[in-house]
C-alpha cells in the first residue's frame, strides 16, 4: 500500500516514515540541481531571501527536457544526488524537509536528516517520461539563465517515490542491497 503525502511537508507528516515505504507525493515542490544549489546557498550566506519558502519544502533534483507545445514539462527524472550533498545541511537548517533524487547520500547528509528530521525520496532513474506524467504544473521561478538547471515550482499529483533515508538515519540502499549480496 502506498502512503499519500502532500507537500509542503511537516515533521508530523514524515517522522514515522520508514525506509522502503512507497509514497505517492502530491502538492508543491521545487526543482534545483548543481548550479541552482550553489546559488541558493550563496543567497542564504548573504542573508537574502530564497526564491521560495524553504519551510517544509521538497526539492527535486531534476533538469527537465523542454516541454513540447501542449505539454506541462518534458521528461523529468531524477539526477544523481551526491553532487548536492555539500549543500544539504544548510537547506535542512532553514526548514527543507524532503529531497527527491537517485543514488546514495553522504553520512553528513544522513546525519543532517536525523538532526533536522528530513527525508530523502528515491525516484526511478531512467523513468523520466513516466515521472513527468505526475507533474501537472511547472513554472520557472528563479535563475532562468541556467536553462535546464533553473529553479521551477512544480505542482505534482501522486508522484511515485520510495523512502531511501528516513528521519532515523536508516538507508534503504545499504539494507536493500545487503539482502541480495552473494558471496
Amino acid at each position, binding site marked *: 500500500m502506498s502512503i499519500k503525502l502532500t507537500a509542503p511537508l511537516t515533521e508530523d507528516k514524515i517522522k514515522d516514515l520508514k525506509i522502503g515505504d512507497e509514497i505517492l507525493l502530491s502538492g508543491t515542490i521545487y526543482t534545483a540541481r548543481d548550479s541552482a544549489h550553489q546559488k541558493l546557498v550563496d543567497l542564504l550566506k548573504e542573508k537574502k531571501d530564497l526564491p521560495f519558502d524553504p519551510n517544509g519544502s521538497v526539492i527535486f533534483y531534476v533538469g*527537465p527536457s523542454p516541454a*513540447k507545445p501542449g*505539454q506541462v514539462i518534458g521528461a523529468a527524472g531524477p539526477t544523481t544526488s551526491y553532487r548536492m550533498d555539500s549543500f544539504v545541511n544548510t537547506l535542512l537548517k532553514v526548514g527543507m524537509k524532503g529531497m527527491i533524487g537517485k543514488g*546514495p547520500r553522504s553520512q553528513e547528509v544522513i546525519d543532517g536528516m536525523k538532526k533536522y528530521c528530513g527525508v530523502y525520496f528515491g525516484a526511478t532513474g531512467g523513468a*523520466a517520461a*513516466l515521472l513527468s506524467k505526475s507533474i501537472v504544473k511547472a513554472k520557472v521561478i528563479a535563475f532562468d539563465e541556467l536553462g535546464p538547471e533553473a529553479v521551477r515550482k512544480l505542482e505534482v499529483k501522486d508522484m511515485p517515490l520510495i523512502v531511501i533515508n528516513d528521519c532515523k538515519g536508516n538507508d534503504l*540502499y545499504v539494507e536493500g*542491497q545487503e539482502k541480495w549480496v552473494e558471496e
Partner: protein
Amino acid sequence: MREIQVKEISKIIKKLSIEASTIANDELIKKIEESEKIEESSVGKAVLKQLLENIKIGKTDKTPICQDTGFTVIFMDVGQEVSFVGGSLKDAVNKGVSEGYTEGYLRKSIIKDPITNPKNTGDNTPAILHTNIVPGDKVKITLLPKGGGSENMSRIKMMKPADGIEGIKNFVVETVKNAGGNPCPPTVIGVGIGGTFDYVAYLAKKAILRDFGDRNKDKQIAKYEIEWLKEINKLGIGPAGLGGKVTSFDLFIEVYPRHIATYPVAVNIQCNSNRKKSFVL
C-alpha cells in the same frame, strides 16, 4: 570516389538524435522483459516494470525516455573511397545535433566554458566525433547520447602488468560496486584493456555500442565477459540500486595491444536506457 554531400550527414544526425532519445531499441525492451522474469527482488521487479512503462510513454508521446539526453557522442566509420563535399564534415555533424536537439525538444546539457562560465551552448553542440577510416565506400554513423550520471561513475586506471587479468577483473567489479545506485542500474558495462591512456577510454566507450549477447570474437575474452558479468550480478545492487539480482544487463570487453610497461584499463558505465542508433549511408 563516392561523393557524399555533407548536408546528408546533417539530416541523418538530426534524425538519429531524436530517435535515440525517444525510441528505445527493441533489444533493450526484450532485455528488460527477460530481466523482470529473472529478478527475485519485488522492488527490483517493480523498477523494471516502471522502465517498460516509461519506454511505452516515450514512444507514444515522443518524449525522451530520460531527461538527460546526454553529450552527443558520434562514431563514424568512413569508407576510404568516400569524399565529403559541400562543406565541413564537423560543421555538418554539429548542425545535425543542433537541429535534432532543438526541434526534438531534447535537453541541452553542454556548458561552453568548462572552467569558469556556466553558460549553456544552447543547442547541445559541440558533439564528440570519433572518425575511423575503413575500406569501402560506405559511411556508418552511430549516435550515442551519453548521460552524465553514468559517465561520472566511469573509471580509468593505469595498472601494472604484474596485476594481470585478475587485477583487471577486480578493478572492473569494484568500479561497478562503488557506483552503486548512482548510474541508474541495471547498467551496461564497457571495458577497454590495452592501448594508451586516451585510447583505452575510447575502447571502453566503443564496447558499449555492441548488441546484447554479441560476444567478443576472441573466445577467452568472451569467457571473461560472461564471468565478470556474473560477478557483478552477485553484488546485490539491483535495479535502481534498491537491491536485487540484476545489476548489469551485459558487459563487453574491447582490447588493443599494449606497451610492455603499461596495462591500461577503462570502465565506461552506461545507464539502463542504453540509447544508441545507427545508420549506414
